[in-house]
């Protein structure tokens, strides 16, 4: 049996009285691939905001790792350094910088100002960047400014940055948006490969994409878990059918 890497229990958060997350409990092991689906406004992005420290919950616990650290006590950057990487729903890369610079910034290294100030490029670093660029299909774009990339390429660059951080848990918010079918297929491969050694949580609307991920699925609705299990299992669930049809 795999170890639990992250555990949320009884988490709630409300914005101006509106409960975006409602008594949510969730667990993921390492390694594991998990898909999260749910209608618009179900709280999928907010769920990731809570894990990464962007949003602080009103109540509940978020426990991380073997030492059972509470993530609620850590800052965003500490959470990232603890091993949680995130890809945002709207691709956010540093548009004014080159693809290489974007990847280099994400590369797992010391993060303190002084070690960054005196950082020297290494052979391993350069090789890692080349390998990542190869994996995300941006080898020819390394010296290009990220702002010039297509939407799909930006998505990939951000996935590359995520992998460069070498996190234990990857939170991937709608990675396939704006991608062609071929690109989507490539993305599923990438995520599945990443999940061989890590915990990966993928939020996605596209059922075909989720099907190809071939993993356990959690259905969110109105801020809580509506159903969990294999895709066949959850799509057969009457509540899930109601929610999706009732949209």
């Amino acid at each position, binding site marked *: 049996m795999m170890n639990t890497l992250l555990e949320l229990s009884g988490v709630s958060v409300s914005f101006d009285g509106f409960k975006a997350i409602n008594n949510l409990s969730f667990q993921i092991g390492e390694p594991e691939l998990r898909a999260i689906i749910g209608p618009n406004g179900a709280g999928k992005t907010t769920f990731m905001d809570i894990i*990464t420290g*962007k949003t602080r919950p009103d109540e509940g616990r978020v426990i991380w790792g073997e030492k059972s650290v509470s993530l609620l006590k850590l*800052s*965003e*950057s*500490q959470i*990232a*350094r603890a091993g949680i*990487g*995130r890809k*945002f729903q709207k691709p*956010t890369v*540093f*548009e*004014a*910088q080159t693809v290489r*610079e974007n990847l*280099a*910034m*994400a590369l797992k290294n010391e*993060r*303190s*100002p002084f070690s*960054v*100030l005196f*950082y*020297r*490029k*290494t*052979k391993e670093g*350069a090789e890692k960047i080349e390998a990542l660029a190869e994996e995300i299909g941006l080898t020819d774009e390394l010296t290009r400014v990220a702002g010039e990339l297509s939407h799909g390429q930006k998505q990939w660059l951000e996935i590359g*940055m995520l992998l460069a*951080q070498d996190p234990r848990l990857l939170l991937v918010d709608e990675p396939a948006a704006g991608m062609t079918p071929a690109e989507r297929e490539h993305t599923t491969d990438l995520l599945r490969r990443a999940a061989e050694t890590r915990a990966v949580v993928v939020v996605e609307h596209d059922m075909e994409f989720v099907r190809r991920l071939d993993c356990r699925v959690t259905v969110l609705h109105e801020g809580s878990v509506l159903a969990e299990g294999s895709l066949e299992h959850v799509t057969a669930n009457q509540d899930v059918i109601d929610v999706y049809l009732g949209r």
Partner: protein
Amino acid sequence: MKRKSFVAENPSILWFLAALALFTIFVTAMSEAAGIGVVSTSFIKTLGKTLCLCLIAVAMDIVWGYCGILSLGHFAFFGLGGYAIGMWLMYARTEIIVTESLSAAAIPPTPEEIHDAVATQIFGVVGTNEFPLIWAFADSLFMQLAFVILVPGLLALVFGWLAFRSRVTGVYLSILTQAMTLALSLYLFQNDSGLRGNNGLSGLQNIPYLGDVPQSMISIAFFWASALALALGYVLCAYVVSGKMGSVIRGIRDNESRVRFLGYHVESYKLFVFTLTAVIAAIAGALYYPQAGIINPAEIAPIASIYLAVWVAIGGRGRLYGAVIGAAFVSLLSSWFTGGGAPSIPLGFYTIQWTDWWLVLLGLSFVAVTLLAPQGIGGLFDLIGKKSKSEGAK
């Protein structure tokens, strides 16, 4: 793989250093000190001061152009540097004068008597004859030089820590930095501030123990010191914004929360940049005021820091040479216009006096640059660079 030296990666640094060296040598050769005197001593001082302004502009470019913190308070650090060195200059020189005049008396004066007489000389104008506590080390050049760095550095560190920790950004941060400068200058305007209120510190051009050296030589020495400081500051800043540090800093400017989610502690980076640039500003100030001869609280007024932002914007932020060009161009032009150098324009019904209208012109140019050429003057160089590059590729 050995990393190419950062100078090799940034050839513009060499261009800048070469231009600065040529300029310095040329001006020196034309100076009164060299016996030619095409360039007057007072103009040497103006040029020396301009170099100091270029240095603070480079610092401003790092903090604003690269890191995205629109600080409207860096002239406060500049002024504090000036005050710190000014205290020693004034103390040491007054002491020499007092000792000389008292030595004529029959009974040689005791050190206390000299000390009291110096205090009376310096603080008579604000109605006291005792040294305030902050002058405790004014007799030590070493200590005052240390204060040039320590006082503004600590102020920036504490202010920055409080501001960045509470995640104050954007306009609110700018307002906060303005409030800091305003508070500091209002405090200094008071007679009991310990720094002679609105009289400020004066006679700073007279360097103690160098009374016999003519100003033409002293002006050249400061001119060279300013050029050297600018060169070192430029290289240091270019190093900071090159490589990974530059990448992170620009990342913070463009999307600070994204940088946070990559695991960088953004506040530490901002604090580092803010404090480093404050210290550079202070060093620039410490070199500026001995050439200006006088420092008073008006120098620290909030408007000075706003001008600094205008220079950098006109020169082109996000490129260090742009900041240098902006500061040199605008400040020299400003002294030409306000110093009566520019001829008035008679319109028949009205005569444009540039001393009055210069600020309007500056304001309009600022608006024009912001709207039409957001990259500033430095942006033109980029265009030329790109053009020659694309032509070279053909």
